[in-house]
């Protein structure tokens, strides 16, 4: 049933893209409405600010429209859109060097927590803590850690989304882990 839904969405996407390229604006609006919540969920990793989130999702769809002729239809439209979204989010990190704010949940609490304890803490607090922790790292490190360890993507997929080579992803991940370790240790000492 789910597979059938996915297939029908793929077909619908392709039909709407063809209609859009033929000049039907309403078709693109349908595409935006169909994918915007998934893209918003993705962009929520890149910002915790509502207005920034709207801006990033908006920018993703505008860039997708501008490059729609380059979509070859070999992979699902969603994958192509995700690649654009990742690059828009990464640019956002690069442009806006967010200052790391102190997490509302202390990292020491997290370090001592068992697997079941994670359920007890508010998921929003956990997301804030994760975001502020990664915000202490340079954008490249944030991106590679997000793709590999938070979204649990394989190296090949991470490379595709980031527009890097697989070797670069591995090297970047190694460096990012070292920096992350240093940040966690530093924060633990402070708290």
């Amino acid at each position, binding site marked *: 049933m789910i597979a059938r839904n996915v297939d029908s969405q793929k077909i619908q996407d392709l039909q709407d893209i063809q209609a859009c390229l033929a000049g039907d*604006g309403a078709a693109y*609006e349908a595409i935006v*409405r169909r994918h915007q919540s998934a893209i918003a969920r993705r962009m929520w990793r890149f910002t915790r600010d*509502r207005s920034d989130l709207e801006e990033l999702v908006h920018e993703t769809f*505008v860039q997708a429209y501008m490059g729609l002729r380059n979509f070859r239809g070999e992979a699902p439209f969603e994958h192509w859109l995700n690649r654009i979204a990742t690059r828009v989010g990464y640019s956002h990190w690069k442009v806006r060097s967010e200052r790391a704010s102190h997490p509302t949940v202390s990292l020491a609490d997290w370090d001592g927590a068992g697997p079941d304890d994670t359920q007890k803490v508010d*998921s929003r607090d*956990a997301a804030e803590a994760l975001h502020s922790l990664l915000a202490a790292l340079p954008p490249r490190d944030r991106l590679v850690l997000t793709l590999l360890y938070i979204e649990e993507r394989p190296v090949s997929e991470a490379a595709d989304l980031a527009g890097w080579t697989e070797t670069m992803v591995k090297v970047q991940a190694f460096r990012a882990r070292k920096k*992350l370790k240093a940040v966690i240790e530093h924060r633990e000492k402070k708290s």
Partner: protein
Amino acid sequence: MNEIEFIRKLSAAAKADSPPPIDVAASVMREICLARPQRETLFWLLAGASSIAAAAVVAVMALVSWSGATDPMNSIFSGFAMVMP
């Protein structure tokens, strides 16, 4: 706990965290509609500018050839050229 386990644990706890509901369809369509005429305008501007540039080149070449034909010095030298051989 190592650093990766640590962020995985945070990420697992943050799983239920979802973004606020947003709707960008209208703003995207607005920007696209604005961008489309701009691209067309740019195309026509470029086409117009290149036509004007081509016309100017043709005019300059015509002027040069006309001034060459009516230049008295040119006729003197062309006279020499006829005598010289």
